[in-house]
């Protein structure tokens, strides 16, 4: 029997978006040093996911191991636009360093940052080689962003071979199913359903289920799931965005959610596209006026 995986619960929580639970349960005694670094990475990434960038930047000193340094870079990158270019320069430096250039965490963060930059080619340069489940999962995500579900499927097959029951495999499977749509939606729904039976409910699982429901035209059910998610986190961008869509389909007013989203996340895709559409509309009116 393999040694019990001390970080299993922690990782799982992180993958499923239970960030606070990751932080709260991070006090694991007697961890080997490798695991301890990974644990710290997970905890700091959880803080980043919760938006506490400054905390991460302050806590990670210059003597911290490479993976933590990279996580700090991510925090720096996300903390404000003025740091972005410096961060990317620093990142490129690290990537060129032969000693640490192939560090999986480094490559992962690089992938994430380039994905934020929407420079998918650059991102894939670093992540394509794979090596960890997270890298594979990120690949799937990038391919999906590029609308190349065929490549995403290939990545998924690799993941299925490594560990079919891994949370990330299942999650990636669900993403792919959602992207492909059609009859695959049902499978995605079942995956999220399994998650909800196995693990504590998180906003991510609820949103996943809700999206499946919306795809299947069950907007009432989707709404109740989304409202449940909103109860867990009233400011979650994805929940708000999904609620807006769902409300529109149900013929309900979505303006409050929309204004909330605009206030909290002016850069959100939905906001941008809505305002872009408004502009186009205005232009069209002016053109016709």
């Amino acid at each position: 029997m393999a040694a019990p995986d001390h970080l299993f619960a922690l990782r799982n929580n992180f993958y499923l978006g239970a960030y606070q639970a990751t932080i709260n349960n991070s006090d694991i005694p007697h961890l080997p040093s490798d695991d301890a670094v990974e644990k710290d990475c997970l905890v700091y990434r959880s803080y980043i996911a919760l938006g506490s960038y400054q905390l991460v930047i302050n806590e990670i000193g210059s003597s911290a191991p490479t993976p933590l340094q990279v996580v700090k870079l991510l925090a720096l990158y996300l903390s404000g636009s003025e740091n972005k270019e410096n961060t990317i320069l620093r990142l490129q430096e690290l990537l060129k360093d032969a000693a640490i250039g192939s560090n999986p965490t480094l490559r992962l963060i690089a992938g994430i940052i380039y994905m934020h930059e929407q420079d998918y080619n650059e991102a894939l340069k670093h992540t394509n080689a794979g090596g960890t489940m997270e890298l594979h999962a990120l690949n799937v995500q990038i391919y999906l962003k590029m609308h190349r579900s065929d490549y995403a499927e290939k990545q998924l097959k690799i993941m299925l071979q490594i560990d079919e029951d891994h949370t990330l495999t299942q999650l990636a499977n669900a993403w792919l199913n959602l992207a492909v749509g059609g009859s695959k939606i049902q499978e995605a729904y079942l995956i999220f359903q399994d998650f909800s039976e196995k693990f504590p409910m998180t906003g991510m699982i609820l949103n996943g289920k809700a999206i499946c429901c919306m795809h299947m035209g069950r907007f009432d059910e989707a709404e109740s799931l989304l409202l449940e998610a909103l109860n867990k986190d009233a400011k979650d961008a994805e929940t708000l965005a999904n609620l807006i869509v769902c409300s529109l389909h149900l013929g309900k007013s979505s303006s409050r959610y929309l204004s909330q989203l605009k206030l909290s996340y002016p850069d959100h895709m939905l906001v941008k596209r809505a305002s872009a559409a408004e502009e186009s509309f205005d232009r069209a009116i002016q053109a016709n006026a």
Partner: protein
Amino acid sequence: MLTKFETKSNRVKGLSFHSKRPWILASLHSGVIQLWDYRMGTLIDRFDEHDGPVRGVHFHKSQPLFVSGGDDYKIKVWNYKMHRCLFTLLGHLDYIRTVQFHNEYPWIVSASDDQTIRIWNWQSRTCISVLTGHNHYVMCATFHPKEDLVVSASLDQTVRVWDIGALRKKTVSPADDILRLSQMNTDLFGGVDAVVKYVLEGHDRGVNWAAFHPSLPLIVSGADDRQVKLWRMNDTKAWEVDTLRGHMNNVSCVMFHARQDIIVSNSEDKSIRVWDVTKRTGVQTFRREHDRFWILAAHPEMNLLAAGHDSGMIVFKLERERPAFSVSGDNLYYIKDRFLRLYEFSTQKDNQVIPIRRPGSTSLNQGPRTLSYSPTENAVLVCSDADGGSYELYIVPKDSIGRGDTVQEAKRGIGGSAIFVARNRFAVLDKSSNQVLVKNLKNEVVKKSGLPIATDAIFYAGTGNLLCRAEDKVVIFDLQQRLVLGDLQTPFVKYVVWSNDMESVALLSKHAIIIASKKLTHRCTLHETIRVKSGAWDDNGVFIYTTLNHIKYCLPNADSGIIRTLDVPIYITKVSGNTIFCLDRDGKNRTIVIDATEYVFKLSLLKKRYDQVMSMIRSSQLCGQAMIAYLQQKGFPEVALHFVKDERTRFNLALESGNIQIAVASAKEIDEKDHWYRLGVEALRQGNASIVEYAYQRTKNFERLSFLYLVTGNMDKLSKMLRIAEIKNDVMGQFHNALYLGDVKERVKILENAGHLPLAYVTAAVHGLQDVAERLAAELGDNVPTLPEGRVSSLLMPPSPILCGGDWPLLRVMKGIFEGGLDNAGRGAEEDDEEAAEGDWGEDLDIVDANGMQNGDIAVVVEDGEVQPALM
């Protein structure tokens, strides 16, 4: 073979099951007949009147009788209720081998070493027919269950079938002359009422046993040639069908199984063998180390067999009778015969779903044991003991539920047990390597995982988890993390029942139920004296379970009780409100409506949902000593109060709960001194002075009454007490009252009247009653006591009472939650009985309060002569 019960004793030669009760008779070589309860495992009675071995014994089908025959040539008919032998039938001239009652007629057939078979009428206690023809010991003789036939086996190597139709006709219309004639015939010609129909020859040695098939025209026989032979007969002839070889020594007994197409035989080779009737091959063999088998018996109604051997007997069955089933929401999947069936609880619809592979009858007891169902994939796992533990995976086609009769090619595998752990994953136990294999629906291994303890079975424990059972403990194991989530020491767990919310689990072992949380934190353990069979959780968290003969409940605090008794064992599948869904041993779905009041009531009490308790008290009939004792024990005497009609119990409960009103009402009903006294004590404790006064009045406890008046400062009544004492001529009482009143003149007067002149003088002098003192001094003459000089005496005057009249501030009585509501309810219910009493009580008190004790009253009291001066 599933052994249900075993005894150790002298050699067992005869056995008989009772048709209704869980009893078996065993007649021993030592001459004793034992009556056992094989369910409880206790010896109920023993009958010891035969001299020498008792070889034959048989219960009557409906009367409380049994018959026995022994080596003392005697046939005895016993009444087991009266624990005695009713009479003895004499006639045989040698050992008696078997005795048997007829199903309908008042007949007994007996076989004897005197080479005859006799039929007796146990009502007239006479021998009505002697069947002669065998020319060696007759080893057994039995009636056909339906037709007028007897089959016998003898050491003359033949089996004979006798036609007793004539005997029946005669008995059914017993005209006098025919009876007389037949009597003559019997005496002269050895009887014409019973004639040999067939003589079956084929065995090479003496035949020990022969038996009819319960419904087909078949006979089976076993002989010293070590063979079992199967015979067939029609109206005109009988012939040998086949021979079953296998026993290594004399076959002592053989019989057809009533429910399955099998023959069971036993032998002096120390084995019991099971044979397939149609294939005529051996199916199973059970051996004992040292004991030769002598006798077999089958239960007339249930699927039970018994065998007697050199050192005792065993009661056993050949196959499990528990249908494999799995509950999923509103659906119950279960296996009956060779079909998977679906039962919907809400509509009570029962449908055949798909046929499954029938286990070959070459291997008994290998039918499906457990069933696991995955609702999303509509897949079913059927586990059985075949091939040392194996499973089959069937996918139920969504559309074609119903008719199909072709067995789909199931995916199979070997494994101790197999269960679904996720919608498309199932776990299979590999006992040899103590591993669990996780497989997908294509039956491919996805993952392997070692198990933390030596596991011999796995059960479902929520998605991704397994409950592993070892000999003495269970653990919950997370398959993904390979972590033990919880463990619990338990007796050997046989079944696991999860509550609907998966928060609680009931672990059923043979004689115990353990309730634990989902992390296996122990909550409670219940022990049963008889086998626990099944159980299910109701919606409120009460565990409803069945034993062999009861449906019972278990509350979260381990309180348990019987809901009802059962005639036959059932397997609970679901509990919904007060309806219990269950499967019986024939695989039929049944619903049983139970009275859930008792446990719902107790549960409400436990959960402190007193509004429910109250409404239940109002609306339903809950009573009985058990309930009162329960409430008292749980600290709810005030609730119990509302169930009780018996005044004494009511009084005690009322005192216990401090409900003085009800106590008073009850005391009035009972009207005994002791009760009044206790009422007074409780009222005093609460400070309810008027009740105390009332109680004292009723017990005529004047001394206490006076003191009470003193304490409460009720001077009027105190002076009345003085009057009473006067009337009663009670000097001490008068003096006390005068003292309490501070009435010096009166005191002096009393002392004077009592003849204590010196005391009277001193009292008067000290209190400055000069004229009285002088008068007394004159009367005393020379004997005037001298008063101490130079001392200022303090006068003996009672202190002024703190509070005058009325009740003191009352002690707060814990009326609690049931205040008001219950009182009203109680009143309502009791109105019939106590209307008068209640009314009276009100008035009574008024009288006491307003007028106090009237002299009239007192006069009456005195005239009655009830007053005992000794009281004072």
